[in-house]
C-alpha cells in the first residue's frame, strides 16, 4: 500500500514538474524563429515575426511572403513593445512561443535611438525569449529583413541561420556575439558590446569594397545568405545605443584582438597572405590612472614562406590598420576591445570605477600596437 502511495505521489510530482498540459501541444504553439523590431516614422514599435507553418492551408495575415514559403509572417504596430507583443498574441492563431527564437533583428534607425537600451531590457524580460538568440542591426527596415529570411536550400530555417552565422564567424567578418551579450554589456560596467551588421542591398558589398583601398584587409567579402541577405561587419554600442559601425576588415582585426578568430587574410602589393594567430592576443592597460596607455600585442604566423622584408611589411600594415581601428573607436568613445575589464581590475569598488569614467580615459589613452609576423613554413 505504501509503495502504491509513494508511486502515485512520484508520478504526480513528475507530471506537474514537466509542465504537461493541453496548451503545450506542439500544434497549439507558434514557435517564433525570427523577430524584426523597428520604429515607424510616427514613433510606433513595429514587430515582424516569422513562424513555421503547420500545414499548407495556413496563411499569414500580416503581409507575408509567397504562399510556397513554409514560414508565416506577421507584423504589428503598437505604441510600445509590450503592446506589440500583446497584439501579436491576438493576431497569431496559435499560442505565441518565443522560446525557440533564433534571430532578433533591429533596424539601424531604432538601434541608434537613445531609448534603445530600455527596449533591449524589455526584450530580455519577455518570457522565454532569452535563449541564445543571435542579434543583427540592419540597414533599412528590420521587417523587410525578417520577411526575406527563408530556408531555400532544403534545410529548416533555424538550422540555416545557425549555419550561416557560424560560417561568417569562422571567417571573422562578423563578431561572435548574441543578443544576451549586447544585453549584458549594455547594463554592465565593462567593454562596449558589438552586434552583427546586416543589409539587403547587394550594392553595399561593392561600396564596402571601395572603402579604404589602401587597407591590407579584405573588404570585398560580404557573407551572402541563400535568401540574398548579407552580413558584414559590426555595430558597436555605447550605453546601449548604436554608436559606430565597423566594416568587415575592421571587424576581422577586432576579432583578432578579442581572440575570436584564428586566421586572417592580408593583401599587400598584389599578393595575398594567409596568417594564423600564433598565440592569444595580449592586451594590457598601463598603471597610470590619469593618462593610461593601452597596449595590444598580436603574434601571427604565415603559412607560406616569406622574407624578412615581407614580414616587416605585413607587421607595419597590420599595425597601422589596428592603430586606425583603435583611434576610430577612441573618437567615438567606445571600447569594444576588452580594455575596460583590465582597467576595472585596478579598482576595489564599482563606485571608484564609475567615477574614473573609463570611456573618457580610453578616448585619450595612448595606444601601442605590436604585431609580430613570421613564417611557419620550413625554408
Amino acid at each position: 500500500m505504501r509503495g502504491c502511495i509513494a508511486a502515485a505521489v512520484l508520478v504526480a510530482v513528475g507530471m506537474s514538474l514537466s509542465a504537461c498540459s493541453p496548451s503545450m501541444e506542439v500544434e497549439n504553439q507558434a514557435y517564433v524563429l525570427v523577430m524584426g523590431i523597428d520604429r515607424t516614422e510616427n514613433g510606433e514599435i513595429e514587430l515582424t515575426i516569422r513562424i513555421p507553418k503547420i500545414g499548407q492551408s495556413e496563411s499569414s495575415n500580416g503581409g507575408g511572403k509567397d504562399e510556397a514559403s513554409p514560414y508565416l509572417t506577421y507584423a504589428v504596430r503598437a505604441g510600445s513593445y509590450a503592446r506589440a507583443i500583446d497584439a501579436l498574441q491576438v493576431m497569431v492563431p496559435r499560442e505565441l512561443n518565443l522560446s525557440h527564437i533564433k534571430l532578433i533583428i533591429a533596424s539601424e534607425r531604432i538601434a541608434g535611438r537613445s531609448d534603445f537600451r530600455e527596449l533591449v531590457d524589455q526584450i530580455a524580460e519577455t518570457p522565454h525569449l532569452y535563449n541564445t538568440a543571435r542579434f543583427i542591426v540592419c540597414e533599412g527596415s528590420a521587417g523587410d529583413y525578417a520577411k526575406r529570411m527563408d530556408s531555400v536550400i532544403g534545410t529548416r530555417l533555424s538550422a540555416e541561420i545557425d549555419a550561416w552565422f557560424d560560417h561568417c564567424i569562422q571567417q571573422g567578418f562578423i563578431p561572435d556575439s548574441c543578443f544576451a551579450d549586447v544585453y549584458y554589456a549594455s547594463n554592465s560596467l565593462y567593454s562596449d558590446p558589438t552586434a552583427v551588421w546586416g543589409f539587403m542591398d547587394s550594392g553595399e558589398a561593392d561600396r564596402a569594397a571601395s572603402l579604404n583601398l589602401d587597407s591590407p584587409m579584405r573588404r570585398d567579402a560580404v557573407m551572402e545568405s541563400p535568401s540574398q541577405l548579407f552580413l558584414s561587419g559590426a555595430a558597436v554600442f555605447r550605453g546601449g545605443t548604436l554608436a559606430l559601425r565597423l566594416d568587415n576588415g575592421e571587424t576581422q582585426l577586432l576579432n583578432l584582438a578579442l581572440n575570436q578568430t584564428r586566421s586572417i587574410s592580408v593583401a599587400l602589393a598584389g599578393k595575398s597572405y594567409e596568417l594564423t594567430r600564433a598565440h592569444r592576443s595580449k592586451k594590457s592597460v598601463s598603471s597610470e590612472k590619469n593618462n593610461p596607455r593601452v597596449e595590444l600585442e598580436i603574434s601571427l604566423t604565415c603559412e607560406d614562406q616569406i622574407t624578412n622584408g615581407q614580414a616587416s611589411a605585413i607587421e607595419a600594415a597590420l599595425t597601422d590598420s589596428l592603430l586606425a581601428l583603435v583611434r576610430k573607436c577612441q573618437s567615438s568613445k567606445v571600447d569594444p576591445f576588452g580594455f575596460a575589464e583590465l582597467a576595472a581590475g585596478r579598482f576595489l569598488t564599482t563606485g571608484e570605477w564609475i567615477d574614473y569614467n573609463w570611456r573618457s580615459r580610453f578616448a585619450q589613452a595612448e595606444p601601442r600596437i605590436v604585431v609580430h609576423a613570421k613564417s611557419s613554413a620550413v625554408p
Partner: protein
Amino acid sequence: MKLRVSPKPAAFSACAAMAARVFCGLSVDCVSPGYAAWLSAIIGAALSVPVLWMYGHVSVVGGRTARTAFQGFILAASLTGSAVTMADIAHSAGYLALDRVAPAVLLLPAALALFWCITRNGDSIGYAAMIWARLFALLLLIVVILQFPYYRPEWLRPILGSGWSTVARNAVRAAGWFCTIGGIWIFREDGGEGRSGKNAILLSCAVSGAIAALLLALHAMLAPAFYSGAALSWQLRLDALLTNGRTPLYLQMPMIILWYGGLFHLLGCEGFAAAMLLQQMAPRLDGRVCAGAVTLCASALALSGFTGSRLLALLIRYQYIAAAGFCAIVAARGGLQTCADA
C-alpha cells in the same frame, strides 16, 4: 511516529541545504543581484562559525526556557525557509508551464514531496543528501567543462563590487541562513552533543560556504551584475541562470537537474527541521501530524505572497543578529563553559 535524524545524515543534509539556500538567496532570489556575492558567502560562513559553536552552550547551559525559545526561533526560520523554497519550486515549474497553471497547482507537487520526505524521517533526507553530494559534483563538473569557453573571470572585478557595506549586508544575510539551517544539527533527536558534533556542523558550514561561493563566482562569470541596480524579474534571473542567453540550450538539462535537486534537498532539510522542532516543542504530536502541519503552513505562506514581501526580506537581514544575540546572552548568563565541563 518520532521524527529524528542521525548525526551524519544531519550534517550532510545541512551542508546541501546551506549551499543551496545561500546560492539562491544571493542570486535568483535577490531582486538586484550585486557584485561580490561570492565574497559575501565566504564571509557569511565565517561569521556563522562562532554562532554555530555557541549553539552547543545554549543547549547545555541555557535551560529549558532558553532552549524552547531558541527552538521556536529556528522553527519559524525553517518554516519560512520552506515556504520560500516552495515558492521557488512553484516559480520554476511555472516558468516551464508558460505561467498558464494556477499557483496552487504548481505548489501541489512540492507540498506532496515535502510531506512525503518528512514522513520518511530525517535519515532518509540526510542519506539522500549524501547521494546528492556525489551527483552534484559530477553534474557541476559537466556544466563547468561545457561552459568553460563562456566564463569571463574579469567580470568578478572590481573585487568588492558596490563596496564593503553591500558585501557585509549580504554576508550577514548568508550568515543568518547558515545559522538557522544549522538548527537541524543542533536539535536533532534530544539535542546537546559533544565536541565531535560541533566540529561536524562547523565542517558542513565551511564546505557549504565554499560551494556557495564557487557557484556564485561561476554564475557571476557568466552573467555580470548590473551597475544600474535595476530590479530584474524572477523569470529573467532564472533564465540567466539556466540558459544564460549565451550558452547552448542542451546545457539546460544538467542545470535544471542541479537547480531542482538543490531546491528539493533544501526543502526537505528545512521542512524536516521545522517538523522535528514542532514535535520537540509539542511531544504529544505524532510525526505525521507535524509533517502535515508544516506542509500546510509552508504552502499557505508560499501562496500568500509573504515569501516575496519586504517584511520577510527585513527579517532575513536580522536573523543572524537575532541568533547571535540570543546565543551570546544565554551563554553569558550561564557562564562560558565547555560542553565537557557541563
